[in-house]
């Protein structure tokens, strides 16, 4: 590591190179492959979460004023659940999977072996700094890799807490934490990794993938997008409203990748929906939401400026029907609802990633599909309806990472569902067994003996061999017999 004038060490390309070599050596030693190592690390993460619940909640309070319940439920409990599941299932996941072999290759047996990829890089995000760091980490550990974690510099308290805690609880030779911003990330990206797992935005996602291309490194990109909510008129509006609110403002005040970005509803339903949203928002966060302890603040002044910019655009500022209050001093923006913003406004072009919720109206609910499909593919799409046909149409015609009908954000907690984007919302998926697979190479293994060697495989080639070959490849017993007997 180089040293600056103030005597601080800097993490540069050279340091990154040393680090990646260390990890590669540890991996080559085979240490991280053992079942015991994986289990011990997973158990330590659970222990760390239990013993430092308060510290972690404090760090999140400093970085985002995140309500304690959100910190514990969405970050810690989720991580612990991932660990528990991995600990329970790991033996099963690691077991080679038997594969059927065909007549063509008879006699033989085959299996698919799950093999760790090697040294992997995890770059995480600021909005769920613990979950989005530790969940991929759990996945990489379960799969038996050596790894380096780069937490986001935009959540500094969380980043430094991770850098402090992880070496205490985990094997610090195989699991490293590098803190830092752009230059440190670039230094890491210049190294060769066996997998890069990035959570964040599409702009940086492109940079990560282009850097990965240099070494042919596979990537998982967990990005975001404008996740729509379609609200039909035939539903229990109160329940729908409450579920939208917890998915939007109840998840880090809209600063979540699966947070509802905008609502589409019919013209006649819009007013009812706005009224209900107002009523429930007040019940949840009080008359003065800027003072509510149950809402996160905006992460930093850059994002604050970005969000207020969206609100202050000429054609948008007049559309606020609820909220709009803000306080630059403590970086707070109240839950804000906008009705009828034009589709060419900034707020409808960019991912909002904050407490603003525009509502678009259409005359027929089916028209919402075209609006959604005219944009890029979102990470999540939500639909509230009791109409079976509409559900089916929605599932068939809307492409998104995940779809939830009659709720929001909950699919994130279901281990049997892959979590990940498509198109602009990213590539690759994780959670549950998918997490293990994301950091695993599926090695094909064939076992053969020396009997059953068909000379047909070998030159010199003849027409008769062609006939037999045709039969063998189709794997039809009768055709094979016929060809052998020279009948065809």
């Amino acid at each position, binding site marked *: 590591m180089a040293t600056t004038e103030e005597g601080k060490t800097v993490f540069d390309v050279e340091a990154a190179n040393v680090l990646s070599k260390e990890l590669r050596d540890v991996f080559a030693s085979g240490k991280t492959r053992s079942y015991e190592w994986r289990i011990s690390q997973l158990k330590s993460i659970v222990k760390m979460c239990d013993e430092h619940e308060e510290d972690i909640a404090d760090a999140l309070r400093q970085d985002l004023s995140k309500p304690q319940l959100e910190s514990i439920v969405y970050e810690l409990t989720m991580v612990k659940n991932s660990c528990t599941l991995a600990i329970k299932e790991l033996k099963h996941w690691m077991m080679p999977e038997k594969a059927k072999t065909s007549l063509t290759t008879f006699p033989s047996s085959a299996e698919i072996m799950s093999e760790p990829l090697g040294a992997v890089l995890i770059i995480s995000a600021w909005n769920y700094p613990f979950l989005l760091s530790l969940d991929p980490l759990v996945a990489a550990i379960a799969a038996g890799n050596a790894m380096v974690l780069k937490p986001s510099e935009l959540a500094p308290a969380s980043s430094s807490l991770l850098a402090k805690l992880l070496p205490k609880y985990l094997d610090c030779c195989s699991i490293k934490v590098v803190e830092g911003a752009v230059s440190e990330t670039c230094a890491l990206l210049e190294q060769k990794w066996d997998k890069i797992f990035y959570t964040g935005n599409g702009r940086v996602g492109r940079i990560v993938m282009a850097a990965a291309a240099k070494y042919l490194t596979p990537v998982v990109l967990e990005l975001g997008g404008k996740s729509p909510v379609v609200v039909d008129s035939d539903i229990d509006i109160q329940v729908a409203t*409450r579920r939208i609110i917890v998915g939007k403002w109840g998840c880090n005040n809209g600063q979540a990748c699966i947070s509802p970005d905008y609502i589409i509803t019919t013209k006649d339903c819009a007013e009812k929906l706005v009224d209900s949203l107002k009523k429930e928002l007040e019940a949840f966060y009080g008359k003065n939401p800027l003072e509510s302890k149950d809402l996160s603040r905006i992460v930093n002044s850059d994002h604050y400026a970005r969000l207020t910019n969206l609100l202050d655009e000429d054609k948008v500022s007049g559309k606020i029907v609820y909220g709009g209050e803000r306080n630059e001093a403590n970086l707070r923006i109240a839950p804000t609802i906008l009705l009828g913003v034009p589709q060419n406004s900034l707020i409808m072009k960019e991912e909002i990633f904050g407490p603003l919720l525009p509502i678009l109206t259409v005359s027929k609910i089916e028209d919402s599909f075209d609006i959604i499909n005219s944009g890029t593919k979102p990470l999540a799409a939500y639909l509230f309806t009791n109409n079976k046909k509409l559900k089916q149409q929605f599932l068939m015609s809307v492409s998104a*990472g995940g779809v939830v009908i009659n709720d929001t954000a*909950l699919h994130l907690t279901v281990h049997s569902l892959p979590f990940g984007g498509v198109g602009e919302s990213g590539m690759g998926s994780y959670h549950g067994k998918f997490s293990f697979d994301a950091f695993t190479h599926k090695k094909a293994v064939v076992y053969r003996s020396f009997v059953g060697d068909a000379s047909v495989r070998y030159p010199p080639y003849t027409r008769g061999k062609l006939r037999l*070959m045709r039969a063998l490849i189709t794997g039809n017993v009768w055709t094979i017999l016929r060809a052998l007997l020279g009948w065809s």
Partner: protein
Amino acid sequence: MIEFVQDNEERIFQALDQDVGKHPVEAYRDEVGVVAKSAKLSLSCVEKWMAPRKGDLPLVFFPASAQVMPEPFGVVLIMGSWNFPISLTLDPLIAAISAGNAVVLKPSELSPTCSSFLAENIPKYLDPKSIKVIEGGIDVCEQLLQQKWDKIFFTGSQRVGRIVMTAAAQHLTPVTLELGGKSPAIMDSSSNPTNMKVIAKRIVGAKWGSCSGQACIAIDYLLVEERFASDLIDLLAKTIKQFYGENPRESKSYCKIVNKNNFKRLLDLLKDPLVEASVAYGGSVDEEKMYIEPTILLNPPLDSQIMTEEIFGPLLPIITLDDIYESIDFISSRPKPLAIYAFTRDEKFKKQILSRTSSGSVTFNDTLLQFLCDSLPFGGVGQSGFGRYHGKYSFDTFSHEKAILQRGFFPELEPRYPPWNSFKLHFIKLAYAFNYIGLILLLLGLKK
């Protein structure tokens, strides 16, 4: 597609003969047969593959259902390669069609007869609005890569693989890269004294029998214990003669080198004086016929190009070791190959090979067969690429797995909503742990 292959078998044989001098048997085994088999399998399975899969759900979500629904990516680009210009172009096409995508197919310009044959005939058999064939060289590839695709499937070299992935990054397009690498064969003679003849056949078949070594899963080099090396060379030489006759130049069963560039590249590999000195068998060439004799080299220097680059041609270096167990370190200290072949009966050795080396696939006691198993994923790792196909994996490669969660409006769990208090925190913690008894106790006020 099945019809296309059936109707055009002879024409495909001719095109392949023209481009790379493939004999019909080889052409059927590696190209026509592969495509026919893959299309038939997809046809019989596609309905099953398309069906959404149910996911397990915890009780807290009741009533609800979870599904994983495969969904086509959209418009995809497939770039084929010249060594198997039919199968490595059409097999991914079958995959993309099964998954429901619109496709642009770009056959390799280095196998021009096959490329123009596909461009001319594919539109006659497949929906020309949804499946387009574009012919052309580097400039056409560059233009295609500038467009936004929903998936790119590339078969070819590492160098071009990097270019493809860099271009894909601009549009966040997922890619499958089917590359190659130096695939070793390990010959454990001491555990295999009786099967040498069969082994020699399988080695010769996997080196020279598949497009004259111009195959991504061809054996690149051979590892053997020193004391067995000369016997092995004799046996291989005998087998080569048995397969291709005294003069392989005249053999119809032996492919030519695809073009001048590759011919020159291979000659350059041989030109290094130390490498030339290591030739133990063969070595003759005929530029007019683009012919290079099956050639065996004994211990060429490890830092020579022939041992640092993928050979992709009919040259087989044999590297001798004192103890065959050293082959594990030899392989794992080099980039990860697409395939490893090991001839051994030593179970302990097999286990070590599996756990201490990494490769796309491992085949024991045979060669190339992993390519034919529909139940096995085919694809590389590290420098040999990423992503996989064949069988169901082909379908998956061109599908996005959409996660779907469906719920009703009742019952509502009040503690999900703010304002937060310690009761709600406790409730959610228990719910996440699926501790139902705890939940009931909490609701009854019996638990703090």
